């Protein structure tokens, strides 16, 4: 600790250089914090959805699986509730107002009880009323729908036996969900009774797109998924079960391979930063060779002096890196208010680890140089 003063004066040998170097490091770590934060923040949010499993037809969800699959899945240990989920694909008034309409049963509220709570009388109303619909608040607000409204939706997927493609629904419930909920499907949900759809439609009677189950233990998601699929392996109705997080992930990954961009940028930044910082520290040390020589002459051991160089590098990088990450965190606080995204603490730890690595690598060559300093030559340079 007594060396702190020595290290500190060493760092500020040339104030302008130090400030500029710190600025470069801070900017680099701010970028790192932002990119990794967005990438991992999104991942972290998605992982929280592992409590729902989606079981669909192995050869293509569109083909559907028999409704009867629900019973077998319900009887498995670890499953807390089971419902069904069939995509209705309707639109309101005009084809461009397409809605995320799903035909399901009242068990869906139990399956999604952690995401939203709907008053029991609304659930009961859904069970009682064949044409019931329960709508997510953001969607209801968008079209100004209230409980008691009758809404007509058209669909090009499920033509009825009477040849018509319009379905009437009565809104009996509103799902209180935030417009910024991380799961985009939930934000615009329009739930209807499967019994109504199944009785009216021409095709795919008795079949659903997904059997959705909730599990008690999120860590067992993959294990239970495999268990469900093993029930139907090699049968006429083979299934593929994925946790909700994987479904969302494949959607997002398909938007673009963001991982590639993040890796590219982080690598380029780290390499160039290493170069710049290394150069800066090397120059600073080179200019102070006489100073280090004096230290050695008055009795500081080789090891101590080498350690001083490393300590300088460390202090510089960690301090500047921390500033950069702090700024990134600050930006996240602002972003977080819009997107419900927070920067995971893991990113800060990763950042600090990188800062330490940076310090070590950029301080290495100068430190070795100081270690092997020839005192006479060094002092003579003065």
């Amino acid at each position: 600790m007594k060396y702190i003063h020595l290290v500190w004066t060493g760092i500020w040998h040339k104030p302008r250089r130090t400030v500029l170097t710190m600025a470069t490091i801070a900017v680099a770590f701010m970028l790192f914090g932002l990119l990794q934060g967005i990438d991992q923040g999104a991942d972290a949010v998605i992982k929280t959805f592992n409590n729902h499993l989606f079981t669909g037809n192995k050869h293509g969800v569109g083909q559907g699986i028999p409704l009867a699959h629900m019973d077998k899945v319900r009887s498995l240990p670890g499953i807390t509730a089971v419902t069904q989920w069939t995509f209705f694909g309707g639109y309101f008034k005009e084809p461009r107002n397409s809605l995320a309409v799903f035909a399901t049963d009242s068990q869906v509220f139990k399956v999604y009880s952690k995401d939203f709570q709907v008053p029991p009388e609304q659930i009961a109303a859904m069970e009682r009323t064949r044409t019931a619909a329960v709508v997510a608040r953001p969607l209801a607000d968008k079209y100004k729908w209230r409980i008691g409204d009758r809404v007509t939706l058209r669909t090009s997927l499920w033509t009825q036996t009477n040849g018509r493609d319009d379905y009437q629904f009565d809104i009996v419930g509103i799902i209180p969900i935030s417009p910024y909920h991380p799961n985009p499907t939930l934000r615009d949900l329009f739930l209807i009774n499967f019994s109504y759809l199944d009785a009216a439609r021409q095709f795919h009677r008795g079949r659903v797109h997904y059997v959705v189950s909730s599990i008690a233990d999120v860590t067992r998601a993959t294990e239970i998924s495999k268990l469900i699929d093993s029930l139907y392996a090699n049968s006429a109705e083979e299934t593929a079960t994925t946790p909700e997080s994987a479904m969302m992930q494949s959607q997002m990954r398909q938007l673009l391979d963001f991982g590639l961009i993040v890796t590219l940028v982080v690598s380029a930044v780290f390499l160039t930063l290493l170069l710049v910082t290394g150069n800066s520290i090397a120059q600073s040390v080179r200019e102070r060779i006489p100073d280090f020589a004096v230290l050695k002459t008055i009795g500081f051991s080789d090891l101590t002096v080498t350690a001083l160089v490393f300590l300088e590098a460390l202090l510089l990088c960690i301090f500047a890196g921390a500033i950069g990450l702090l700024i990134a965190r600050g930006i996240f606080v602002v972003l977080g208010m819009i997107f419900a995204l927070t920067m995971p603490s893991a990113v800060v730890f990763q950042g600090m680890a990188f800062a330490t690595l940076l310090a070590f690598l950029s301080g290495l060559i100068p430190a070795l140089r100081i270690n092997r300093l020839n005192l006479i030559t060094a002092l003579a340079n003065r």
Partner: protein
Amino acid sequence: MDILKQALFVLTMNVRALRHRLGTSLVIVIGIAGVAAVLISVLAMAAGLVKTLHSSARDDRAVVVRNGASDETSSFLARDAATTAMDGPGVKRDPSGKALASAEVLVVESLPLAGEDAEAQISVRGLGPTGVALRPELRITQGRMFQPGVSEVIVGEMAASRFKDLRIGDTPVLRGRPWTVVGTFSSRSAHDSTLLADAETLMGAMGRNEYQSITVQLESPQAIGPYRDALRLNSSLPVEVFSERDFFTRQSTTLNTVLKSIAYVVGGIMAFGAVFAALNIMYSAVSTRAVEIATLRGIGFGPDAMVIAVLVETLALAAIGGALGAVVAWLAFNGYDLSTISGGGSQLVFQLAVTPKIVTIGIAWACAIGLLGGLWPALQAARLPVVVAIRSA
């Protein structure tokens, strides 16, 4: 000596002494190369996307969709509306008199990916009888064309390599039943990531009775105006007419914007950091050469010459860095395959395109960094008092 001659002299002197300062000069070059490489790579993603979507877009082909439809999958056109649209004025006819107009449907299916344990979405497009004739850029490279009325498809080369089991003879399951792949095609466009089939057969499998879009070949690019007006006058036709080029542009706008924003935001932040680094190094360079510079000032070189010399040196290093970054980006990423969702929810495979325009942007960006990073040190060089030279000697 006038300013330019002075500047030139100082510059030549600096260049000759460059080998002493190779290390620090290299740092600027590589640092700026990194920024340029990242900017160029991400812009190349956007450019590649646009290139693929536009490469087969023609100004004399039009796409007709329902009024208000944002893309094909949210459009639907009844049979009679389609027939009327296909009979519009200016539609080219083939030698036998048939209109080169194809009423089409677009379906999105999920198929397993090759080499991965996951599925991805793929577009299946149902074509009308003249659907292939009106797309001369589309060539069957293996096998044969599908026959109408039978569950046959042809697969684009990109799709065939990206997905599992899409070779000739394979039977992917679409809409619940197996279809046979009878040929592969190449069209150097977005279609290469899709499957093509007969529209009527596909509609039968889907249980649908409407089309989603109509692609027509017009007599000339100018014919689109009259064609559009004629359809608009017919009030029973709820349609919109786009030139193929405009239609594809609409589809890629969001992703294009996202990519460009990422490129400039990330590139901007990196450039910001690079400016600090350049400042750092150039300040160092100036102070290392303080004696030289002060001596030159002392013997009569004007301050402006110093400024110009330092600025030009920094700019040159930055430009080299930019070029280096462009080369790295080109070598590493030009032609690299990326896949994504384009409008309509299907997967599009496209390749990064490091175009000359992007390279120019990258180098210009690099020069801007150099300019900003060299300005203040240059000004300092100009203001260096002569006494520094005397004292240091």
